[in-house]
């Protein structure tokens, strides 16, 4: 079987090299059949990679320890679910997943994005082939998942942190996001290579960009929740370099999703949009490099390897190639119009873009600086939480405010009178809320109060947008309030889906501000019968219980929770001892309060031989709004992604004659 896996990967590599080289030749010389053949090679590479993935999955399911990858990342007693998710638990499997998703995306994109036009599509194929070739090369020559050994009696097991249900969805989601950004990049480069810088590449990739961005966002939130329930330090985001690696391309893609609207509506920012697409893709490559190269110390970086220089070389090649291409095509990327006013919707999008990119770049500097200082001075400098928090406040809070301002400002220009009218209610609501918060004692955190006040302003402006829009649709003759409301959304899904996503970001901001600026932390050693109090909750330690599972032994502290005299229930923080991995994991206990949105979070820092426990208790107000934000985010993304028949008809009429397969 490993031979089949290796053969499938070599086949995939050959097909990708073919689609890159022959596809480039065909696009350059304008050869139709060769271009079709190169496109078919992409389809073939997907089939071949699928076979390779099936071989690895079968080896995992059969505990075939003659595969070094299976022996290194699983054990006989590992439950089947985690055994299968070990597919992406190690470096070689992750790279295979990258390639599989890339080939799948490539096929789907070239088969469905016909509005891009033949001459652009002919260049998209070799760009996708080039990226695929790089990953296939790594898998064939540098990090093969099909390396074999004399079959061991048992495997080394899976890192305990990865033995969590979130591992079934978090990495694939992130990869769907990371890899998905290749599609808009390939179409942008295809448009530049073909010399066709009109809107076709944007129209063809609109949904792909949105889907990749949504996957990346959901993947990060799932990762945050995994960190919250599994890692056991009481938080969900630690500015870890690998966490940042996913955040940076998401920020760049968010900027692109906004600025591309300016190009569609005003024909401006063509250079900026191509740069943003390239930045998002480059950062997604950089993210994979950070996670997989072993260059950084991180809780998420599960591997040490030699693929770093390859990645670095490829990132440099892509960056240099992209910049050269943009420079070459600059004359074709001139804007048709200019910004009419600094007080307009497009201007607020521009400010939002600058802040998003500034935030992404400052995070990038925070990640890169320790690596550079290690390289230059031999000692790694540390960039820690205060650095990131400073820039999050400096750029994030104005971004939050802009989310409320943007929808209230008209395109092109807005007069003071119109602004006064549209801003009145959101502003009044926000000021009243800010005063009320101060009166309620929220002033202990200045940033917290500002974040809440801005959040209320954004929510009020979104609500007003929906109300005014629905009223306008009703006045135009739509039947009833509900009918007008659904017609409002159906007629402009991207705008109103975007507002729902904005509401999700507000929920996220409220959750983050509440759970970080206003959290309470207590730590103490408790003997049996001792108690401690945190944020009004009395915690009584009752002793321990132990149990055995197939691959680990569990020990749990029994902690009864009271509020006043009311018994609220028993929490069981503790630890797991994993046999094959010879590792101990922290197993936290959480009590959710659905009414307040807060959590009581218990960590057994130390299980002591004398029967006592070192207990850390955190009260995290509003933290559950962060997870609720994830659901709202998915809802908003789906609204924006949902096909719009009216728009489809309009585009079909516009591109009639210019669309067809190769």
């Amino acid at each position: 079987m490993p031979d089949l896996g290796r053969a499938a990967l070599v086949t995939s590599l050959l097909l990708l090299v073919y689609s890159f080289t022959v596809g480039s030749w065909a696009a350059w010389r304008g050869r139709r059949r060769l271009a079709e053949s190169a496109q078919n090679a992409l389809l073939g590479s997907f089939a071949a990679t699928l076979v390779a993935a099936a071989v690895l999955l079968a080896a995992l399911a059969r505990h075939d320890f003659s595969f070094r990858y299976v022996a290194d990342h699983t054990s006989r007693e590992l439950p089947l679910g985690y055994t299968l998710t070990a597919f992406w638990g190690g470096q070689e499997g992750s790279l295979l997943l990258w390639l599989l998703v890339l080939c799948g995306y490539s096929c789907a994109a070239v088969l469905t994005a016909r509005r891009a036009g033949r001459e652009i599509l002919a260049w998209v194929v070799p760009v996708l082939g080039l990226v695929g070739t790089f990953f296939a090369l790594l898998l064939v020559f540098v990090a093969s998942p099909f390396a074999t050994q004399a079959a061991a009696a048992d495997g080394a097991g899976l890192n305990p942190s990865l033995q969590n249900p979130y591992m079934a969805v978090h990495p694939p989601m992130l990869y769907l996001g990371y890899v998905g950004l290749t599609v808009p990049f390939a179409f942008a480069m295809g448009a530049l290579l073909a010399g066709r810088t009109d809107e076709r590449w944007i129209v063809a990739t609109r949904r792909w960009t949105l889907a990749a961005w949504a996957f990346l966002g959901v993947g990060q939130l799932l990762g945050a929740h995994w960190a919250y329930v599994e890692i056991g330090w009481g938080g969900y985001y630690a500015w870890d370099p690998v966490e940042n690696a996913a955040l940076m391309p998401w920020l760049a893609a968010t900027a692109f999703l906004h600025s591309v609207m300016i190009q569609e509506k005003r024909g401006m920012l063509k250079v900026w949009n191509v740069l943003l697409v390239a930045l998002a893709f480059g950062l997604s490559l950089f993210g994979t490099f950070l996670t997989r190269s072993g260059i950084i110390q991180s809780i998420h970086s599960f591997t040490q390897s030699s693929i770093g220089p390859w990645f670095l070389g490829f990132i440099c090649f892509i960056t240099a190639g992209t910049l050269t291409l943009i420079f070459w095509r600059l004359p074709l990327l001139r804007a048709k119009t200019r910004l009419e006013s600094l007080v307009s919707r497009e201007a607020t999008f521009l400010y939002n873009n600058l802040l998003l990119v500034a935030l992404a770049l400052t995070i990038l500097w925070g990640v890169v600086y320790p690596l550079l200082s290690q390289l230059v001075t031999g000692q790694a400098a540390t960039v820690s939480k205060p650095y990131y928090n400073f820039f999050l406040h400096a750029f994030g809070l104005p971004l939050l405010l802009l989310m409320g301002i943007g929808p209230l400002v008209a395109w092109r220009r807005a007069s003071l009178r119109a602004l006064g009218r549209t801003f009145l209610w959101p502003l009044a609501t926000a000021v009243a809320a800010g005063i009320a918060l101060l009166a309620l004692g929220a002033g202990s955190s200045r940033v917290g109060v500002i974040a809440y006040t801005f959040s209320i302003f954004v929510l009020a402006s979104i609500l007003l947008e929906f109300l005014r829009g629905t009223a306008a649709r009703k006045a135009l003759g739509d039947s009833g309030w509900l009918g007008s409301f659904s017609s409002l959304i159906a007629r402009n899904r991207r705008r109103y889906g975007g507002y729902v996503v904005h509401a999700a970001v507000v929920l996220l901001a409220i959750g983050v501000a509440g759970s970080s600026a206003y959290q309470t932390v207590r730590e103490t050693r408790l003997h049996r019968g001792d108690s401690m109090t945190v944020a009004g909750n009395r915690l009584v330690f009752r002793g321990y219980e132990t149990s055995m599972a197939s691959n680990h032994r569990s020990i749990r502290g029994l902690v009864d929770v009271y509020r006043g005299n009311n018994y609220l229930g028993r929490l069981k923080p503790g630890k797991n001892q994993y046999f094959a991995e010879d590792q101990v994991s922290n197993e936290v206990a959480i009590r959710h309060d659905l009414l307040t949105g807060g959590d009581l979070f218990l960590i057994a820092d130390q299980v002591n031989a004398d029967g006592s426990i070192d207990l850390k208790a955190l009260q995290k107000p509003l933290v559950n709004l962060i997870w609720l934000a994830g659901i709202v985010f998915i809802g908003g993304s789906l609204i924006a992604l949902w096909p719009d028949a009216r728009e489809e008809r309009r585009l079909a009429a516009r591109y009639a004659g210019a669309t067809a397969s190769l």
Partner: protein
Amino acid sequence: MTVALAVGAVLAVVCVVLVALPFLREPKPHDDRLAVPDEVEQRRLSLAEDRDRALAALKELEFDHRTGKVSDDDYRALVAPLRRKAAEALRALDLRAERTDGERIRTGGNR
């Protein structure tokens, strides 16, 4: 091992056929050039984008005016140039279509 061999063989055949398919389907094509829009079609596309942009902007302006986001003064100042732009794009597209039809009739060809 037999299954692996069989799967490998099927994969290899499928991939070779896929790559060769365009040449197997059309061994001697009438025209093997990659059909790309000519200058006339490019111009039409550009005009169609301008027309759609202007019409979408007009629609948005009307709606923003109705919801109170655009004042009456702003509306009056913005609507005229947008209407002019939309009309220009529509007129240019009509002229181009007439010219193309005329050429087709003269040459007796079908595009």
